[in-house]
């Protein structure tokens, strides 16, 4: 019953979102998010659920997307009339086929060997995508017009909002499908094989076969994400298949958190926002992204949701209140430190003209600006050093019953 309410709530949120963010840009970002969520969740089936570190997951996303665009082209040239709502499925099936083929020889081993095969396959396909022009369209990619598809109950999908509802429907189905998969024997065994492949063998299961199934399912949903991409952008390029694209999804899943089902969803939402909004304000956004990623790997091995989950024990014991004061005390110097460091980095990138940051004008050439920011940073750092022990103590008290040591996750 509770689950039903949750899923209904999820559907409701999906319905309401485009009413809140109804600008052209807002809807566009929502579409991007929907695609990213499906993609990141499919990656989680590999790494989070199945323990397979892949550096080439974009292969299935890209192949699914390319096939979907070709399917749309068939409709455009009136060879075949495929309803647009089914295009993502075509992408999914293509992703599934590719995963069945590649999985047949790569899932026998996990760990480094699997990671290296995924890297090799990814590089191979990315490189051949520029050579095999007839399918991949070279560097300008393949483009198709979605509005040629037969109207779906009068909807011609000429507007982004209409595409949003298509994407949201597929998002809902995919999230539900992947969630349910994790609750099936095959899904649970994937966890078992991730933790201890040897033991799974002595319980009657071939670790390779278990991985293969997860791999195929992950490929299928990655293909669906690719198909959604094709519907939304009406174009696929070699860039959708390459290592950078595979890296992106790794970042999403990891920053969001691999342990919990909603982790990658959070990661996908966050990274889409960063990708599509942050670059409007700073050219250094990739540097910040890299820093956030490395710090996450170092201090939050279970990602952002992992950090949230750490609060479960204090929550259950009703001691969350103990943390409010130390959190606030740490957050203030923490935020000041981060903001002043960002200010320094941004200042270093400006050549001329006043640089208005947080409403304060700075001059790139002047030592005063530099020293002021540096002084603020140092003061904030010293303050942070003094508030951190208090937070640590509060943590220890709040989660006293838990045998696990506290996490220094919020140290910037």
């Amino acid at each position, binding site marked *: 019953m509770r689950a039903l309410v949750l899923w209904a709530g999820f559907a409701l949120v999906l319905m309401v979102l485009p009413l809140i963010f109804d600008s052209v840009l807002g809807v566009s970002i929502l579409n991007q998010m929907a695609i990213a969520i499906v993609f990141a969740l499919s990656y989680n089936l590999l790494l989070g659920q199945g323990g397979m570190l892949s550096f080439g997951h974009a292969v299935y996303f890209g192949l699914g997307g390319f096939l979907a665009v070709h399917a749309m082209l068939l409709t455009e040239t009136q060879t075949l009339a495929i309803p647009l709502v089914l295009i993502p499925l075509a992408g999914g099936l293509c992703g599934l086929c590719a995963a069945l083929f590649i999985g047949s020889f790569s899932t026998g081993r996990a760990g480094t060997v699997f990671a290296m095969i995924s890297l090799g396959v990814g590089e191979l396909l990315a490189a051949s995508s520029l050579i095999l022009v007839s399918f991949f369209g070279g560097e300008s990619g393949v483009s198709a017009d979605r509005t040629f598809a037969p109207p779906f109950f009068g909807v011609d999908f000429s507007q982004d909002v209409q595409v949003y509802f298509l994407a949201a429907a597929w998002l809902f189905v995919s999230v539900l499908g992947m969630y349910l*998969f994790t609750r*099936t*024997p095959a899904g649970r065994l994937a*966890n078992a094989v991730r933790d201890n492949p040897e033991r*799974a063998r002595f*319980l009657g299961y071939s670790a390779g076969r278990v991985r293969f199934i997860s791999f195929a399912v992950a490929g299928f949903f990655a293909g669906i994400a690719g198909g959604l991409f094709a519907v939304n952008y009406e174009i696929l390029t070699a860039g959708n298949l390459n290592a950078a694209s595979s890296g992106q999804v790794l970042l999403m899943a990891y920053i969001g958190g691999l342990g919990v089902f909603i982790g990658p969803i959070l990661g996908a939402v966050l990274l889409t926002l960063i990708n599509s909004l942050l670059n409007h304000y700073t050219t250094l956004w990739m540097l910040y992204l890299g820093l956030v990623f490395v710090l996450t790997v170092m201090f939050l091995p279970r990602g952002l949701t992992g950090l949230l989950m750490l609060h479960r024990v204090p929550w259950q014991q009703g001691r969350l209140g103990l943390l409010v004061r130390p959190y606030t005390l740490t957050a203030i110097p923490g935020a000041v430190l981060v903001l002043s460091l960002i200010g320094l980095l941004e200042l270093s990138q400006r050549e001329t003209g006043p640089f208005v940051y947080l409403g304060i004008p700075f001059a790139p050439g002047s030592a005063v600006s530099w020293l002021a920011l540096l002084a603020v940073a140092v003061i904030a750092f010293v303050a942070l050093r003094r508030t951190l022990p208090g937070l640590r103590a509060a943590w220890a008290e709040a989660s006293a019953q838990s045998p696990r040591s506290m996490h220094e996750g919020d140290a910037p």
Partner: protein
Amino acid sequence: MSVLQLDNVSKSFGNSAILRNVHLRIEPGERHAIIGPNGAGKSTLFHLISGRQQVSAGRILFKGEAIHTLPPHEIARRGLARSFQVSSLFAQLSVFENLRCALLWPLGYGYSFWHLLSREKALNARTESLLDELGLWQRRDVPAGELAYAEQRALELGLAIASSAELILLDEPVAGMNATEARQALALIRRVTAGKTLVVVEHDMTVVFDIADRISVLVQGELIASDTPAAIRRNARVQEAYLGVPVPAGGQHA
């Protein structure tokens, strides 16, 4: 027909022979212990039987069929289960999930991705009763990696017996336990393996003579005797090669 039959089994790594021409028969319902000094090849013998390692020569029959060429999961499916000397669990899964995973194949779920685990009443009921039997009821939702040592050993045993396999191999089931824990564990083993064929590797002689109705002695890769506990006690070669070496009760092991 013997449940398990080893004919002339040898195993060597490079030039060093670990096991030499081992013959062994284990009859249905038998409780068989394998003893021997460190490095005698006891664990290797288990690895060969369970398919973790390949025999260099000879053959192994389980219920009359050759299994020495099969991968471990095929052997397990035929009804041969084993435990490990060092607990080998699914660390991030809860105790309940660990046991449920062990029940999936025996209950015929295969690699299904069309059943929802929460809907499978029979499966869940069996898991719960197994939890009960192992005395892990209160630790139901704790990740296996966070269990105390004795609890981990109990779960290890649980994974081995969950499948109600006909033949169960236990590799030092009470190693590292104190006397009280060992006594409880033994009682548990006796209770849950009732009516099944059991092969145990164990250092602790009190355990061995307590539990086994037949004992085989492995010394430097050779099976020098296989007999009833009383006969083994009297066996001169065993005394010379093995019991002659003072082994303090309580079982010190590496």
